[in-house]
């Protein structure tokens, strides 16, 4: 090469990111892999255990049940939050003073720390002193989320929908307002009505932001810990013990690092697989 036309200095600017990712992702992940094939009794002394922990987790009824609960939770909130977020975004004003009001109101739940959300909903839903709990019971429905699994699930899903639908709505709204007026004008000339405009203009234009919304909500809800942990603590019984709650019980409650590491890796692989599937399906036929 006689003349060098490319400036390769940009690679230097990537170094901080590589160092950051190495220390907050790669090194901990490697350590988890190392733990997953060993047994420890503390004091940093480890014994080789082979693939035994993986086998235990794969055959454990408890892990299967936690995974099933986790999948049910994640898909329930996705089915509710994504369409609801899109509908809210469609009804939000595009111009005028109400835009800021709406945006601020929508952003409020996102600003509340997760443990506060859990604590708020815990008190809000208590059957004897909470507003929601008292209201439901006064309507003649027997509702007590500390004792009834179904009520606990209902409260947990309602809490997540309240906390995170605005994220989906804000993302969808950002996609909507980026559609140029020309598209709507063309639709009007063609005589397209409400549903056709949504199906052929708004939805395709929102596809990219909705991909991000689905991925974010999937990953966040799949690893959710704080909110259900504060709200129900995994109970009543084990009825709301999601994967992450079970994992913390094993790793910190029982200090079984090996099984917890093996379970984390399986958990990680499932997240990776679903994220890949979502991403591939939603960006299919778009080219590179």
């Amino acid at each position, binding site marked *: 090469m006689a003349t060098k036309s490319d400036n390769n200095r940009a690679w230097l600017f990537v170094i901080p990111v590589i160092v950051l990712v190495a220390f907050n992702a790669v*090194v901990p992940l*490697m*350590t988890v892999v190392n733990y997953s094939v060993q047994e420890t009794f503390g004091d940093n002394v480890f014994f080789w255990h082979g693939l035994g922990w*993986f*086998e235990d987790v*794969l*055959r454990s009824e408890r892990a299967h049940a936690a995974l099933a609960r986790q999948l049910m939770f994640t898909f329930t909130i996705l089915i509710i939050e994504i369409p609801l977020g899109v509908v809210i975004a469609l009804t939000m004003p595009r111009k005028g003073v109400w835009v800021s009001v709406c945006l601020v109101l929508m952003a409020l739940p996102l600003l509340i720390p997760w443990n506060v959300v859990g604590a708020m909903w815990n008190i809000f839903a208590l059957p004897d002193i909470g507003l929601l709990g008292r209201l439901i019971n006064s309507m003649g429905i027997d509702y007590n989320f500390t004792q009834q699994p179904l009520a606990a699930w209902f409260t947990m899903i309602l809490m997540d929908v309240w906390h995170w639908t605005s994220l989906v709505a804000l993302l969808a709204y950002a996609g909507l307002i980026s559609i140029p007026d020309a598209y709507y004008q063309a639709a009007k000339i063609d005589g397209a009505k409400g549903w056709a405009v949504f199906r052929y203009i708004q939805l395709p234009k929102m596809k990219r932001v909705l991909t991000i919304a689905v991925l974010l909500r999937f990953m966040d809800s799949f690893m959710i810990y704080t909110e259900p942990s504060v709200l129900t603590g995994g109970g009543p019984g084990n009825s709301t013990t999601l994967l992450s709650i079970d994992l913390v019980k094993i790793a910190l409650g029982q200090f079984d690092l090996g099984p917890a590491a093996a379970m984390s890796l399986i958990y990680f692989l499932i997240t990776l*697989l679903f994220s890949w599937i979502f991403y591939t399906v939603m960006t299919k036929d778009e080219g590179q």
Partner: protein
Amino acid sequence: MAGWMAWTWPTAGFFIFVFCAIATMGFLEWRHPGGAPRRGVLGIDTTRGDRLFLSLLGSAFILLAWLGIFSTPIYGGVVLAVLWGTFVFMKV
């Protein structure tokens, strides 16, 4: 220094293998830029990096399934995983 990471030779070997695979992808990209994109039997667009990712992810699930169904030793699972990787690099 890395004592707290509790290294063992099998896990170190695994990571060396993964890093070598990624380095090979980097080398191939340097010699033949563009990532060799194509649309394979699954009907999705993949580059050679995507194919490596799919091979590794698929192999992980094949080995977990083998472990869950047949227990150790996992030689059969390894054979299946290699076959899967070959299939992905040839056809997907």
